């Protein structure tokens, strides 16, 4: 990953405000209260992680910030602007399965760029090349998605969501499907890329270590209904090693807190 040549213009990272979000899912048989009074503020350029067990509504929250789902109550503001639909300034790095199999690696990265009419085609290609170099996949431009390993797919997904130059990047468990070694490497790379192309990032995961590895702050969510229970500041220096003892220690503390909140929820339900 050596890139000293002309870097594409970067938009300033956005400030993100999530205000007392409530979301219910109604089907004919059941009504689920997915999120209850969730609110937080992310300063521009900050890396925030939301951690919780499955079913705590964290993916729903990510969808709401992306504008893909409309909340029943509350609102999301990006740089003071109300979010009422998906927009290029808030891109989601989905799990690897969201890459398009009918396009090769290069054209997957180009997809978002093609939808920015202000760019000329030559500029688009230069930008796509830049981001493929940034994630270390310049040799795989012509490859198809199924020919890549899990870690490489995640890199393509990262390049694809960075290329249109969003102000907020939303990540959905970027490391969870990877083996330990690939995970450690990608963890370093995401940190390095974030230092270089500063974005406001919101990451959701069920993996406490993954959260501690990246975050300035970690929010703890408990399920049914999803609610923010606690906030932790992570004072570790960067780059962080996901396998370091120090990091594991903090992760352990958060894990204990999470179990405590889960216990309360169960008691309340009984």
């Amino acid at each position, binding site marked *: 990953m050596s890139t000293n040549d002309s870097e594409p213009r970067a938009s300033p990272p956005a400030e993100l405000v999530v205000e007392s979000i409530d979301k219910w899912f109604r089907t004919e048989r059941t009504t689920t209260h997915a999120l209850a009074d969730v609110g937080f503020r992310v300063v521009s350029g900050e890396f925030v992680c939301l951690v919780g067990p499955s079913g705590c509504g964290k993916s729903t929250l990510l*969808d709401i910030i*992306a*504008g*893909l789902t409309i909340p029943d109550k509350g609102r999301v503001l990006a740089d003071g602007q109300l979010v009422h639909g*998906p*927009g*290029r300034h*808030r*891109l*989601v790095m*989905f*799990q690897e*399965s*969201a890459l*398009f*199999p*009918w396009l090769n690696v290069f054209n997957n990265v180009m*997809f*978002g760029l093609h*939808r*920015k009419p202000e760019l000329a085609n030559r500029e688009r290609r230069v930008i796509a090349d830049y981001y493929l170099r940034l994630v270390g996949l310049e040799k795989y431009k012509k490859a*198809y*998605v*199924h*020919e890549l390993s899990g870690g490489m797919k995640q890199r393509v997904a990262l390049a*694809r969501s960075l290329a*249109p130059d969003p102000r907020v990047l939303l990540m959905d468990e970027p490391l969870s499907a990877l083996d330990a070694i690939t995970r450690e490497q990608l963890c370093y790379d995401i940190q390095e890329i974030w230092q270089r192309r500063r974005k406001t990032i919101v990451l959701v995961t069920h993996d406490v270590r993954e959260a501690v590895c990246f975050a300035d702050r970690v929010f703890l969510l408990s399920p049914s209904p999803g609610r923010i229970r606690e906030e932790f500041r992570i004072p570790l220096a960067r780059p962080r090693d996901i396998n370091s003892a120090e990091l594991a220690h903090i992760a352990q503390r958060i894990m204990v807190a999470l179990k405590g909140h889960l216990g309360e929820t169960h008691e309340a339900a009984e």
Partner: protein
Amino acid sequence: MKRTFVVAAFFLLLIGIWHLATASGRWSSILLPSPAMVGEYLWGALRDGSLIEAIKVTLRRLLIGYAIGVAIGLPLGLLTSTSEFFEDTIGSLALGLQTLPSVCWVPLALLWFGQTETAMLFVVVMGTVWSVLLATDTGARTIPPIYARAARTMGSEGFDKWTRVILPASLPFVVSGMKQGWAFAWRSLMAAEIFVTILTGFGLGQLLQYGRELSAMDQVIGVMVVIVVIGLVADKALFSPWERFLHRRWGTGLK
């Protein structure tokens, strides 16, 4: 190369068994002509031009009818996959009509259009549309919703989303639907040609029916062979490139 050899050897073996069966004299050669007699008929029909003419007429009807069927079925299938209203109306109509064997359209076509080229095309189109529609509908429904969501966040909405995401994503199903539609079109056309005698063109089905009327078994079997060969060749020529393309991109069917 090795596989071509296996295929050739297998069919030569079949012809050999057929030859031995006729040579045994157990069956009358009027009911079971030898491979040589069928070959002789085919050679003669090729030379006097009647076979080529029949193939031309039949393929023209097939291609036009199939093209119309796909042009109607594909967009309707996309429509029924997205809207509950169209699913309940056009979708259930398609489901019903697909169960109707296409030969059942022949009497209606004859009464509506008479003994014309239009009647023939009508039967082919009716045989194609519904299966293409249903296959496309299934295909568009099975697309992982995450593709559409990823596309939306990157600023792809409406027409752009349909042509650049939904349609390519459902391509594997669309191609298999079109393949199925092709088989249905071929069947309906043969049924129509056997039942409808029209003066504007003399197709393979009519040639087959004529063979029966003349009790010319060599002609009957010869035309049947031609029909099978055309079906096989068309399948390879029309769909194999698409299937290879899909396998390369999706990474399916690899050994």
